[in-house]
């Protein structure tokens, strides 16, 4: 019939659109791809003009991430990058976990037991995220000095937890606000304590939201640079800071080395997003569709 040729069924896109979307996606992904390719190239291949897409891959850059000689001709030494990767994972993981625990409980409180002036509190919490970190770095630096937190794990973990909290509270509150109050009333009538109500009824419903919040928090914390630069010491240094310190040296910028660090740096984020992607999509679209 005539109308069938003009209209297609919902859920089926033509090849034309698929290719179009593919091209856009490729443009977005290209810088990442280029970095990954660079990580496998020799220095000569990296600097080749025109750029090389086909080359003999090498793992040399990855080896030198963890151990290399700083001065030509000397024996390779440990760079400490295994430690920095551990620091990044440990610090980001712990602080996001802490922020999720505290933030979820706080959000439940804000959502279910509003204080007089509830919105004001929420606004104040949000204002802490309105300033770029660089503005508050000096007072925080001084506070850390006085408290003896500079360069320690608790210090940077606390800071990142505080840094993640506003976002977590706002996100989680919106998820709690979406839940049906009837379900909670039903649970109360069915003899639930408030604790059981939270853990058995409310909590399982917001896991998708929790996953989405965790991913956003992890990405933010994982990539954070300024605080880490000023407030971590040699022992607690994270990868972004260590990466910045790798730039330079007697033979100029080692692009292959940097690309290798970045490639390794991407892996944990990709794994987390991949594991959580099912929840992630549900989490970020939560409440946008009327159930």
């Amino acid at each position: 019939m005539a109308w069938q040729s003009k209209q297609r069924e919902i859920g089926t896109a033509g090849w034309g659109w698929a290719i179009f979307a593919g091209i856009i996606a490729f443009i977005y992904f290209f810088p990442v791809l280029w970095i990954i390719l660079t990580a496998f190239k020799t220095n000569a291949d990296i600097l080749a003009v025109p750029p090389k897409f086909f080359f003999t891959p090498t793992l040399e850059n990855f080896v030198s991430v963890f151990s290399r000689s700083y001065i030509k001709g000397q024996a390779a030494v440990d760079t400490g990058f295994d430690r920095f990767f551990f620091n990044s994972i440990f610090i980001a993981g712990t602080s996001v976990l802490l922020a999720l625990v505290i933030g979820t409980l706080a959000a439940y409180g804000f959502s279910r037991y509003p204080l007089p002036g509830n919105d004001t509190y929420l606004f104040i919490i949000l204002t802490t995220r309105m300033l770029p970190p660089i503005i508050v770095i000096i007072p925080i630096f001084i506070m850390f000095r006085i408290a003896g937190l500079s360069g320690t794990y608790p210090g940077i973990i606390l800071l990142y937890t505080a840094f993640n909290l506003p976002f977590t509270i706002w996100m989680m509150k919106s998820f709690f606000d979406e839940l049906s109050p009837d379900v909670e009333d039903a649970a109360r009538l069915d003899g639930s304590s408030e604790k059981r109500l939270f853990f058995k009824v409310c909590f399982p419903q917001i896991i998708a939201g929790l996953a989405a919040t965790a991913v956003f928090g992890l990405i933010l914390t994982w990539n954070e640079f300024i605080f880490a630069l000023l407030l971590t010491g040699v022992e607690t240094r994270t990868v972004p800071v260590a990466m910045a310190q790798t730039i330079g040296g007697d033979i100029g910028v080692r692009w292959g080395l940097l690309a290798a660090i970045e490639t390794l740096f991407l892996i944990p984020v990709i794994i987390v997003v991949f594991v959580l992607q099912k929840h992630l999509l549900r989490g970020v679209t939560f409440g946008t569709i009327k159930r």
Partner: protein
Amino acid sequence: MSTIKLQNLTKRFGDLVAVNNVDLNIDAGEVLCLLGPSGCGKTTTLRMVAGLEMATEGDVFLADKRVNDLTPSQRNVAMAFQFYALYPSLNVAENLAYPLHADRLSQADIDGKVREVARVLDLTDVLNRLPGRLAEGEKQRVSVGRAIIRDPNCFLFDEPLSRLDVQLREQMRGQIKEVLSGLNKATVIVTHDQLEALTMADRIAVMRDGYIEQVGTPHEVFATPSNLFVAGFIGTPQMNLMAGTFAGQRSGSLRLKTGEQEIAIPSSVPHAGLTEGGRVTIGIRPRSTELASEAGDDTLTATVDLIEPMGAETLLHLSDGDRDLRVVVDQDVMVRVGEQLHVRPRASQTHLFDQNDARIA
């Protein structure tokens, strides 16, 4: 004994009085329907019984014990919600078992009870499904099952059937009635659907604007509505309500004037306190009429405006210029638009209301 008693129950939200001085007694085994239009306070009343709303004034007694200060979980009432309120992350069996948690039963006992309720409500095949994957009727049965699985003081149902389609609704009405009849508990059902109330209730409490307008058996509220609101609210098609005046009593009948017409009704219709020239509202149910072949003392004359076939019957909209009159006739009565008809209200099924809209005793 499983009873509910409400005394002077009042709920105010700021200036709005949602529930006003409600007194009700519901006996064990009795099903009371709170019936009324949206916003009349029926759900608020129910929620006060459950403890989900605090009463501003008045008392709630469950099993003769004052429960005003008890939390919902301490009151031991079972409630089924309009939107079912199933626990989304628990499957059907876990949903059914949830209320048993407080009773500290063994797992075997819990399983046994769940299986028994599932069998009664025909849920055995879906015990492992999550609520999101259930059909509307199944969700409704799970919500009923969750209410009946334990031994509560009373049952509360908030618009239990409003989300079901007509066929399922009819089926569930019967099923709920059957389940409840075996339990001997005081039950309150909130509904805005009068058919639901008329079929399921032992007694109906008709509410409007926070007040209870009438409490009675389904037959009582239908046959002897205590005021104009109840008269107009109960019964479909709606009762014809015509303004008129009392024109005196003559030869064993009451004469009433409505518009240009005068009609005689049997003096057996209650008319105490009526004086000549007094204003009344005449109530005639569309089904309590018959067509007369010619005009008489006891008929009203009107022409056909609109014909609505309803299957077994036909609804006629008549008009005598000022007033509309709805009349239900058998499907085999053939009339045409514009035809003049003589309508005779059935003796003793005519209602009279005074100026204050109250039924004349």
